[in-house]
């Protein structure tokens, strides 16, 4: 266990950024999101949840795949360069780290997504324990310990110090880079914080929400439930829940004509959108109820069915906070719970 005084955090950031780019929560125009650290960036470790999750670090909202160039009537293709340099994502919470592991199931399984794989390979995760969990957090339901998150390095923030514990090889290597700034520390303060967090988590209203009945076996019964018809009604069909989600992984591929060539890029898609999975013949899901159902069935039924029971929800609660109509996964789970299913 190492530590660094919070007064010296800027030195730590600078030291990390010297060798690789550093992403961390930055407050910009009043909102905190992950962004690249610069001297004048306003780092914000106090806000528990960034608006968007740290998903962008590995799976950006938009990224170029390749570009076609035209010379007369000849066309040539130039693929986008894959991530080659390492980078650090600092301050990811337990839920976001788990979110990346959910994405791994999708993008690292065959066929491997090269763009994602390259970023995962070169990304170093420095996670941060949640000293003050909030009411919409329910990561515990998914077996996540926000007091000791996963990651290459785990950190804890107390009033005076940032405690630093490398966990993996990557983490050790990063620690070595900044060793000059770190001092040795004992576990006392960290243990105290972990105990305090555990106590708070027990008081969270949804920490122990039951996921009983949500698995691959429940597919047909859940799919056909008349409850969806009631639940989706207030849904505005916006993509807020999917875009703030650390695990939503659907994307769309589009072309952009730059005048000098065509850039093929991919961008996050949302199952809430009417053109989601639109094909030449039309759309598989042509009502908002079906699209709404898709999101929750995917997270709680289809995904665990295909991934050894792993849910593709990590309980970060961002969708709970951000839905304009106050709809959310908790209300869905509870609604089904009430039905006794």
């Amino acid at each position, binding site marked *: 266990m190492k530590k660094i005084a919070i007064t010296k955090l800027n030195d730590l950031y600078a030291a990390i950024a010297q060798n690789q780019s550093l992403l961390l929560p930055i407050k910009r*125009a009043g909102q905190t999101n992950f962004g690249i650290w610069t001297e004048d960036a306003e780092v914000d470790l106090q806000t528990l949840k960034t608006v*968007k999750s740290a998903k962008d670090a590995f799976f950006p909202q938009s990224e170029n795949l390749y570009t076609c160039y035209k010379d007369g009537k000849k066309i040539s293709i130039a693929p986008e360069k894959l991530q080659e340099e390492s980078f650090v994502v600092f301050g990811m919470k337990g839920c976001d780290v788990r979110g990346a592991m959910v994405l791994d199931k999708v993008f690292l399984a065959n066929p491997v997504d090269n763009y994602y794989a390259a970023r995962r390979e070169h990304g170093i995760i420095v996670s941060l324990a949640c000293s003050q969990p*909030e*009411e919409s957090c329910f990561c515990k339901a998914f077996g996540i310990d926000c007091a000791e998150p996963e990651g290459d390095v785990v950190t804890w923030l107390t009033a005076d110090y940032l405690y630093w514990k490398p966990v993996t090889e990557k983490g050790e290597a990063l620690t070595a880079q900044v060793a000059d700034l770190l001092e040795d520390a004992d576990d006392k303060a960290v243990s105290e914080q972990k105990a305090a967090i555990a106590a*708070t988590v027990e008081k*969270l209203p949804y920490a122990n929400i039951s996921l009983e009945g949500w698995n691959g076996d429940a597919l047909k019964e859940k799919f056909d439930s008349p409850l969806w018809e009631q639940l989706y009604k207030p849904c*505005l069909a916006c993509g807020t829940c999917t875009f703030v989600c650390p695990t939503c992984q659907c994307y769309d591929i589009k072309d952009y004509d730059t005048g000098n060539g065509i850039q093929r890029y991919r961008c*996050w898609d949302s199952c809430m959108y009417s053109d989601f999975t639109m094909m030449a013949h039309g759309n598989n899901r042509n009502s908002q109820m079906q699209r709404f159902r898709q999101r929750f069935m995917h997270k709680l039924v289809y995904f665990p069915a295909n991934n050894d029971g792993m849910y593709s929800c990590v309980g970060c609660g961002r969708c709970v906070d951000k839905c304009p109509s106050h709809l959310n996964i908790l*209300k869905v789970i509870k609604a089904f719970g009430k039905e006794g299913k």
Partner: protein
Amino acid sequence: MQGLKARALELLNDGTVSRVLGWKIGENTYDPEPAFFETAEAMEQFVYNNFCAANLSKYMIEASKLEGKTLVCLKPCDSYSFNQLLAEHRIDREKAYIIGVGCKGKLSIEKVKQSGLKGILSVTDTDPLKVETLYGDAEVAYKDAMLDRCHVCKGKEHVVYDELYGESEDTSDADRFEQVRAIEAMSPEEKFAFFQAELSKCIRCNACRNVCPACSCRKCVFDSNKFDSAQKANVDSFEEKMFHIIRAFHVAGRCTDCGECSRVCPQGIPLHLFNRKFIKDINALYGEYQAGADVDAKGPLTSFTTEDAEPGVVSQGGIV
């Protein structure tokens, strides 16, 4: 609230209406969700409190397609949106039974959180708000927890209703165009920096558009291939500017300034500024106009006078 619920139930039971469009009790005081109630049993979950901010008028588009009348609860400012939708034939007046519900300014849990409170376990909708959190109890003044739009309230009168329930209050205590004027006073560089910072947060979730009662197109131009314009986040941020400028332009003269766009933006972008800029310009150049105030009024961008200002007025000191 009980009276309102009883009245709605009465109208539902006697067959005057086939359903009630109101708010359903949430997990907490602060998260009621818009909902349709079709049975007396369902009505048990009906709620109307000071956190019921959502403008329900847009839901009437779908409700107008259903059999029978829908009882809809509209706050004074929502009634403008209803009228505007009516003027554009998007909803059917005959299909609506409007209870104009009282409003004394709506609360936002975001505002409560902005006061620094975390881990909110419960909150009251009283003045002051009594907040119980994981990390201690606190109080927040009602005005401080009120949505921004309520500080520039359009007034306590409903412009359309079948019956009224409850008292309303004009909660305006700020100048509606103050922010717009502040930006107008900036240099082009400052303006650009301001909007660049705000718009770069945009994640193209389309919440602003989808909640907007003026954005009632069956298919948004950004969702169709008519202009080769993208619906989703692009690699370059130009699309965000394009989207927000065009969206504001499309609702110019039709926007009632209900403020839902800014309320729902997950990134807290002050989207209403675009709409208010247009409203301010329209008022200055073409005469005071409030969309939705009068169903038969001619919209400022679908009418003209031969004496209108030239576009050059913008570069000659701007529209004041």
